């Protein structure tokens, strides 16, 4: 399969008053054409920073690229100027944000917000662009789009706004869509509709999607591959089947274990992961999950494990994979 996006050893830091915060510390992954990749992890693990840095959307300063490459269609985004990025943003890469209530400009008509990028990138006239906006709103199942494009965001419900947001992101038919927790702020019934919608549009237009989420149900439902992120680093990556069926990293296992299930008995406690994620102002030398890991060994404290491939598509970064730790990893909670 053809690689659309390849991130190589990306590190992004923030220069703050107290010193450097290393939000992303050397991540490498790729996204193929037409596939959906999930980036999962808890709050503050660097998912959103990774995603925003793909579009150069982080405020710089305080943020800066420390090292690494982001190859999009073979070109390095890290090296691009603001002018060059403007040609890519909203044209080849689009983004959907978490909260549809605040991501739309309250003083601008929905139609104008949708066509704004389109007019710039495809040099369309206002009427042509508007026609496309109506088509797009139709595609995302917003009823009466001719009327709706003249309305303001406050006249839309939350779900409708997120649909408008998707229309806005997809209207110029981008190669890559980054969805930063697109359903977190919506209620459950609407969540499913929005996810279905994204899948439909993907089928129709062949867009690749990076889905950032901490909702593992969403991941199982919609993604091809899963990347597990923790403390600014990648812990494990594999196909959805591999990750859910055979999680290798203790963090992935704990993450899966903390999802409530319908078949759980009432007396069973919902698992949580004790402790807090590491402070990335002073990132740990070894495995970032060391403090919270039940299976931690002495080596984990000061040495970061390498990637160990279990299959062609599945790797994890954990010392338990090491031959000398054999036996510990087997039979633990899964």
């Amino acid at each position, binding site marked *: 399969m053809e690689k659309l996006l390849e991130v190589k050893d990306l590190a992004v830091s923030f220069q703050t008053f107290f010193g450097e915060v290393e939000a992303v510390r050397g991540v490498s992954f790729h996204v193929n054409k037409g596939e959906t990749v999930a980036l999962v992890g808890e709050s503050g693990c660097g998912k959103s920073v990774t995603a925003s840095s793909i579009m150069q959307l982080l405020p710089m300063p305080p943020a800066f690229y420390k090292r690494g490459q982001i190859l999009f269609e073979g070109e390095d985004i890290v090296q691009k100027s603001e002018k060059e990025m403007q040609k890519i943003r909203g044209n080849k890469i689009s983004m959907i944000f978490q909260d549809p209530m605040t991501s739309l400009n309250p003083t601008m008509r929905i139609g104008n917000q949708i066509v704004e990028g389109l007019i710039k990138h495809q040099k369309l006239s206002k009427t042509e662009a508007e026609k496309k906006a109506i088509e797009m709103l139709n595609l995302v199942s917003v009823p009466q789009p001719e009327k709706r494009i003249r309305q303001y965001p406050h006249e839309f419900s939350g779900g409708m706004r997120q649909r408008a947001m998707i229309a*806005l992101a997809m209207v110029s038919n981008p190669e890559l869509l980054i969805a930063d927790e697109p359903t977190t702020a919506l209620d459950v019934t609407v969540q499913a509709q929005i996810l279905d919608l994204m899948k439909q549009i993907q089928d129709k237009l062949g867009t690749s999607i990076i889905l950032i989420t901490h909702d593992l149900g969403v991941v199982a439902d919609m993604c091809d591959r899963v990347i597990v992120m923790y403390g600014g680093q990648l812990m494990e990556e594999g196909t959805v089947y591999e990750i859910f069926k055979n999680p290798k990293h203790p963090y992935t296992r704990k993450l899966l274990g903390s999802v409530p299930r319908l078949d759980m008995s009432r007396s069973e406690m919902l698992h949580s992961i004790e402790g807090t994620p590491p402070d990335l102002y002073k990132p740990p030398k070894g495995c970032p999950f060391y403090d919270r890991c039940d299976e931690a060994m002495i080596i984990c404290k000061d040495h970061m494990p390498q990637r160990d491939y279990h299959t062609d598509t599945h790797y994890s970064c954990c010392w338990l994979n090491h031959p000398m730790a054999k036996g510990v990893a087997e039979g633990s909670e899964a």
Partner: protein
Amino acid sequence: MTKYILKRFTMAIVTIWAIITITFFLMHSVPGNPFATESRKIPENIMENLMKKYGLDKPKSEQYMMYLKNIARFDFGESMKSNTETVNEMIARGFPVSAHLGVQAILIALILGPALGAIAALYQNKTPDYISMIISIIGVSVPSFVMGSFLIQFVARNVDWLPIGGWGEFRHTILPSFALAMMPLAQFARLMRSSMLEVLNQDYIKTAKSKGITRTAVIMKHAVRNAILPIVSMLGTTISNLVAGSFVIEKIFGIPGLGMFFTTSVFNRDYTLIMGVTVFYAMVLITMMLLVDIAYMLIDPRIRLTKEGR
């Protein structure tokens, strides 16, 4: 929208009526009358004639009703001091001058203030930010009459670029307009800076950026329009401050505006002129505030909906 404006209009009429009533009785409760202030004593029978001519011999309630009747026809009556001009004519002569000054000052404040604030926000904690905040601190803390005197000293007397005072040509208006504009300009700049900083951190700015439009388009179309809302809501009070402030500025620069009539009329107990100028100002201010509210509705669609729904 029409319903809302109609409602506001009715309210405005009631407000003006209240102002008329309060001013009328306050004014008449002040000792003295328009003719008693003359240095020489007026003979009894002449005084009686004068009182009769201006209707001051009638009971207060009757005078009040008469006045209301005239006001309804926008007739402010005759000045008790000037034999050549009616109050309407005096306002017609003075108001264009004051309005000219006020409008020019508001325009200066409204263009430079938000621009200064927006620049400060975009270059937060850098040199442009410090410069514009120093300007606005000076503007807020120096009263307009001090500012006026300074301008006269440094721009008119020391270097002789502009006239010290007087009225007639455009160059006469420059210094008083700036003196008058300084305070609201500074307030606008400070307000714009903080609201712009807030808006720039909003999610929709990130959305706008993610569309790939230019930085200028993000700032002008998305940030400024939202950031300017608090300033628009402040505009009503600011306009009233400018009109009040122009009394002092008109005095300093020797401008024949409405402010001059106001002070002299009070000293002279010129009843009709006091009433005329006060009521006229009230009308202007109320109209301005109504216009500002309508402007606010046009800029912020959310307001439009809630007020229609009422």
